[in-house]
Each structure stands twice: as C-alpha cells, then as structure tokens.
C-alpha cells in the first residue's frame, strides 16, 4: 500500500468513527452543529469544522438523528441535533463492535512490532 492510500483509508476510518462520536456526543444532550464541530475539532477528529455537515446530513437521512430549531440567548436561532431511538441503538451496537475491533487491531499491531 502506498502512503497516499494509507492516508485515504485512515480518512475513511476516521470519518466512519467520527459519525459515531457525533452520536455519542448527542447521547446525553442535544447540540447544535457549531458546538459539535468545536468539540470534535478540539479532539483532533476533524481537521475542518465543515466536515461534520455532510456527516450530520447522512446521519439524519439514515434516521439516526433528528433536528429542531431553538431560540438562542445570543445570536440567531440554532438547529439542534438529537438522537433518535434508532441512533441510540446504533450507537450501542457500535460501542460493542468498536471495543472488539480496537483490541484486535492493537493486538495485531503489537504482535508485528514485537516480532
């Protein structure tokens, strides 16, 4: 695999995982796009704030999140995203699968580096 392909695979992996991070962030409270972007960007999961909007659009299309508008004390009304029941169960499923996936990848990576 050439380095460029590795970067591309990583980008896809990151994007897939970021979708579930969005769901996880919405688990306890609803949030608006700008807020979500700030958190994910601070964690280094997204390079640009704009990246989350295609992801949010897809999550909404798949019925995992929904939106409603709310007045804001400062500035214009905001579109808040919240989890649907389907999103909640999808997140639960991902959490289990992710743990197994992460452990397996770690295990194999460590095996290769020690051999």
């Amino acid at each position, binding site marked *: 695999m050439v380095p460029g392909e590795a970067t591309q695979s990583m980008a896809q992996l990151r994007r897939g995982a970021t979708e579930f991070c969005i769901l996880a962030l919405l688990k306890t409270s609803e949030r*608006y796009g*700008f807020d979500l972007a700030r958190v994910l960007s601070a964690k280094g999961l997204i390079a640009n704030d704009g990246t989350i909007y295609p992801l949010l659009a897809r999550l909404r299309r798949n019925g995992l999140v929904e939106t409603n508008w709310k007045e804001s004390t400062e500035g214009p009304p905001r579109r808040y995203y919240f989890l649907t029941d389907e999103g909640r169960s999808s997140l639960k499923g991902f959490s289990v699968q992710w743990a197994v996936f992460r452990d397996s990848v770690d295990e194999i990576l460590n095996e290769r580096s020690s051999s």
Partner: protein
Amino acid sequence: MMVNSVNDKLVNSYLRELKTALREVSPRRRREMISEFAEHIAVAGATLDANDEVGLRNVLEQLGDPEVLGKEMMETESISPTRPSDAFVPWLIFLGAILFGIGWLVGVVLLWRSATWRLFDKLLGTLVLPGGLFAFLLVRPTVKACSSYGSPGQKTLTHCVSSGLVVTAPWNVVLAVLLVGAPIAVFTRLLWVRNYGYGD
C-alpha cells in the same frame, strides 16, 4: 450579527464557492448544505464584533476550503452524482420525437443511465407515452374537419374530411386529453424529481 459589508462579501463569496464545489450534488442536498454552513457562520459570527474581519476569516478558514469540503461531501454521499445531461432528459422525452426523430430514444437511454430517477419514474418516462407528445400527433384522434356551405334559407351542405384515427365524439376528447395530459404530467414529474429530489 454581521452587518459589515466587507464581512458580508466574505461570507457570500465563501458560500458561492461552496455552491460551485457542490455542483455535482443533487440540488436539494446542496441547498441543505449551504443553509447549514450559513447557519454555522451566523452562530460563529454572533460571538464576533461586527467589524471583526480577522475573526470572520478565521471562522471561514476553520470551516475549511470549499473545494476540499465539496470532495468530502461527494465521498460521504453514497448517492451517485447527478449528470449534466439530466437537465435535458425530461425535455427529450417530452418533445424529442417531434424535434428530431431519435430524440425521444436518446432521452430514454439517458433516463435509464442516470441515478437521479428511480425505477418507478424510469418506467413512467418510458411507457407514458412512448414518443412523448409525438404519440398525440401520430394518432391524431380529433382530426375530422367539417366545413359547411350554404346561405340562409338554403339547404346546408356539409363536407367532412377526416384523417388519422377517427373515433366517436366523447372518446375523441378523452383520448386527446390522455394523449396530451399524460406526457405533460410525466414531463412535470421528471423535472420536479431532478430539481428537488425524492425528499428523503
């Protein structure tokens, strides 16, 4: 809110670039994206002074390069991009056969190759009615021209010339309405789907 004209220009030019970068995304999705970005900028801008050009530039930079975001959008969207030829498809199917013989056929081929329309509309576009509006001209259900001669007091002579398919009067009307109405309805639907998508 930003009312400063330099800042307004910056925002408008950013959104315009984004719109161009999203040209291959369906119009409905494009509108959604632009409105999300405009909202993000407005929310971020609310914390800035009205004249804070540097602050706004930082917001836009943090949002990302429109060209790069457009590519990301295409990768995230599993749907196939719309084709430039989609714009002609409804017209070709509607009028293609009248304007130039194989026009309708070209339209049907493009319709089936495009990802913009779903199976139901592809069938609709193909079967209702083959040839589009040309089907009406072909059948010409109402062509029965009658002319009357004579002056007041005289016996009136009626001379009728008919061509095409001659059917009895009430059916004439029904058939004509169907042959014209159905292609118009299908044409409108295909145009609508291309412009606004399926709403899901």
